[in-house]
């Protein structure tokens, strides 16, 4: 039997692209092994390219019972043996085992990062029977043919063990924290109430929820303070412009009234005109965080969604590897080649040509570096099939950002006119762009509004046409949204570029937070409260920062994995002990919190009849049917009730009916689109529908 090289990839799409790039004809054979697709490419020898489907191996408890803690013994095992929903993984593991029998060379071509390296390592170690020590490593940042060929011809002689050790440690540390603390929370609640409910926390989840809760407390306890603002309009050469009063805030109403009285309808004199030109440097290339934030602010995409879209673009070889923290674009990526290739698309022809006319191309770069990958950039490939709207938007954003970093500085002029009216100072402000520079390339995404002021000189007389007082209040701090939370996590150094978006999603899934502008739920508060009392270390950002730093040290071969694991176990032991001793009060607090959260979820809105009770979805014990009833019924004050559909799921929407203003519920029935139901029997929309 002829021997071959087995190449492991992270995903099927990547396997296809790698096989196509490495096959002499560009047409590898597409085969299946027990439902698992793989490819045979012919080059200097036969290459068998087999994809994984993300992680095939995970950590499980070794020995001991499922419903007890602390747990410190673990082992790596195929995911299908550990997770109910991962049954399909068995086929992939078996396919690797079978195809590795006749292979005499092994290459890991998974993404070059912690997760990718670990995926390749586990497959080589466990599925291929200990081939991790002899395997080679392909290193690449794009799925372009030229780069893949180079990575295959000049592989790293061995696996990147430092990265793998860091990856293993991260998974093991997270598992130790997650399993022990989540089990402690869940078991405490179950022992107290006799009911099961999933409660979780973790090394990163805890601190993230902690600072969300801190912000939420400030917002909920906030008391506004009144202040006043002076708004004015000035007349200059038949045009009206806004004038700004010297003080943004006036503390008392009487003082504000005095300013209005002194200045309304009065003519002032220009005492100074300041003109300033500002040079604005081009933006820096995208690392994953800045890409996620920009996509959120421009298109409203949650960080996780942006990452998923970018991953698809990477697998289509349209952009480089997106999970990077680099803000650098090294010349080796070939600026000219990329721009020449982008020129083929009509929308970029003019812009790319303009850049190519430059003598030298030098990108503006940020400070952050990533040893494994450069910043996100377009490969120059054009989409072979039409992209969906989200993919199109993100690709265009990356392309334009890439071009913008090579642009020249933009030049802006700002004008400030000082106006004296009856002893009070007002300012008129104008701004215009003198030279677009990089903005030309990034145009649809630049936020720069011009305000043109008529020409004015010192000594000119200007009349204030309108002067008014506006009642204002101080505002609470704004709530985090997924993008600003991501930034905060980055600043605090908690989580990694690959895991942060996922952790934010877990907070939503557990019901600890809700809404786009993140609101911490009662359950979220209670979990943080319990952890703060009985395991304060777990919610501390400091602990997780220290662990992240240690993980970096493992990556740089300065600390051993075993040392970090021992430290973690020593840290966890006393915390879990304390948890166990206080299981009863913890269980009580968590059960009450869960019950409160469940009750809250069933509240539809205020009762339109009594005005004080809450309309709630109630399940009758007697008839086992559900209906909407007023909470004041139990006090004997209100008997309002409405029927509900008995099939499917019913959930409050938080919105009111546009016709009658009553609260609405959302009804899902299998096989049908979810629909909003107004349960007001006299809703005008219903009678209108009946008539038609």
């Amino acid at each position, binding site marked *: 039997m002829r021997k071959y090289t087995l190449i492991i990839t992270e995903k099927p799409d990547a396997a296809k692209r790698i096989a196509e790039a490495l096959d002499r004809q560009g047409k590898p054979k597409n085969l299946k092994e027990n439902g698992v697709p793989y490819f045979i490419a012919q080059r200097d020898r036969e290459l068998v390219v087999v994809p994984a489907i993300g992680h095939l191996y995970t950590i499980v408890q070794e020995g001991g019972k499922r419903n007890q803690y602390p747990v410190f013994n673990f082992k790596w095992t195929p995911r299908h043996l550990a997770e109910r929903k991962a049954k399909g993984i068995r086929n992939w593991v078996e396919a690797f085992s079978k195809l590795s029998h006749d292979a005499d060379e092994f290459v890991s071509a998974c993404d070059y990062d912690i997760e990718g390296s670990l995926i390749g390592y586990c497959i080589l170690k466990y599925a291929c029977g200990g081939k991790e020590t002899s395997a080679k490593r392909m290193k690449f940042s794009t799925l372009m043919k030229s780069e893949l060929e180079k990575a295959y011809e000049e592989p790293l002689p061995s696996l990147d063990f430092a990265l793998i050790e860091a990856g293993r440690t991260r998974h093991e540390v997270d598992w130790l924290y997650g399993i022990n603390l989540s089990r402690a929370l869940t078991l405490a609640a179950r022992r107290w109430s006799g009911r099961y409910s999933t409660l979780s926390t973790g090394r990163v989840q805890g601190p993230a929820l902690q600072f969300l809760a801190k912000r939420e407390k400030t917002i909920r306890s*906030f008391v506004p303070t009144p202040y006043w603002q002076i708004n004015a309009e000035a007349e200059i050469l038949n045009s009206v412009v806004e004038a700004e009063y010297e003080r943004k805030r006036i503390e008392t109403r009487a003082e504000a009234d005095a300013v209005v009285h002194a200045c309304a309808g009065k003519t002032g004199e220009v005492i100074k005109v300041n003109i300033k030109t500002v040079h604005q440097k081009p933006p820096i290339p995208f690392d994953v965080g800045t890409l996620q934030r920009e996509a959120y602010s421009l298109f409203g995409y949650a960080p996780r969604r942006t990452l998923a879209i970018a991953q698809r673009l990477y697998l289509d070889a349209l952009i480089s590897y997106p999970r990077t923290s680099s803000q650098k674009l090294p010349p080796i990526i070939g600026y000219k080649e990329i721009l020449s290739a982008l020129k083929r698309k009509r929308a970029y022809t003019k812009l790319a040509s303009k850049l190519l006319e430059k003598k030298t191309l030098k990108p503006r770069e940020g400070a952050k570096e990533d040893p494994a990958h450069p910043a996100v950039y377009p490969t120059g490939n054009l989409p072979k099939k039409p992209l969906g709207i989200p993919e199109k938007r993100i690709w265009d954003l990356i392309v334009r950002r890439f071009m913008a970093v090579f642009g020249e500085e933009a030049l802006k002029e700002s004008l400030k006119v000082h106006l004296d009216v009856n002893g009070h100072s007002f300012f008129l402000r104008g701004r215009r762009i003198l030279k677009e520079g990089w903005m030309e390339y990034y145009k649809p995404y630049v936020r720069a509004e011009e305000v043109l002021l008529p020409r004015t000189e010192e000594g000119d007389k200007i009349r204030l046409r309108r002067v008014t007082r506006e009642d204002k209040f101080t505002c609470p701090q704004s709530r985090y949204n997924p993008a600003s939370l991501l930034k905060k996590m980055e600043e605090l150094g908690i989580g990694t570029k690959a895991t942060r978006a996922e952790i934010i999603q877990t907070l939503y899934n557990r019901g600890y937070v809700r809404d786009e502008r993140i609101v911490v739920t009662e359950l979220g508060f209670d979990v943080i409260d319990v952890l703060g009392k009985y395991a304060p270390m777990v919610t501390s950002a400091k602990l997780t920062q220290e662990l992240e730093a240690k993980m970096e040290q493992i990556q740089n071969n300065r600390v051993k994995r075993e040392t970090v694991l021992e430290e973690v176990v020593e840290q966890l032991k006393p915390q879990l002990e304390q948890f166990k001793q206080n299981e009863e009060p913890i269980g009580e607090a968590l059960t009450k919190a869960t019950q409160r959260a469940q009750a809250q979820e069933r509240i539809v809105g205020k009762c339109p009849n009594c005005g004080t009770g809450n309309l709630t979805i109630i399940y009758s014990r007697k008839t086992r049917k559900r209906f909407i009833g007023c909470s004041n019924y139990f006090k004997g004050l209100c008997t309002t009730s409405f029927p509900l559909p008995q099939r499917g799921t019913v959930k409050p929407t938080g919105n009111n009916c546009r016709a009658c203003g009553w609260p609405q519920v959302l009804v899902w029935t299998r096989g049908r689109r979810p629909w909003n139901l107004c349960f007001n029997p006299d809703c005008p929309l219903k009678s209108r529908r009946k008539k038609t």
Partner: protein
Amino acid sequence: MKCIVCDREALEKYCEFHEEAYLNVVQKFEGWKRATGVSWKQYLKELVENAYTGCWAKEVAESLLKTDG
């Protein structure tokens, strides 16, 4: 003892959360009085109606109004 606003454990009158809100309500009154000349009762009414008042501070203001401050 329960908090007079919610059913959490109270420190004295209020739970930990409403206590913080209560302290804010009391502390900010002087500023309001200086700025608008408002009375304590009127101030509490203003807080209940103000869109920027946090929900815990609002609940405290409502409970103070019911108990005549």
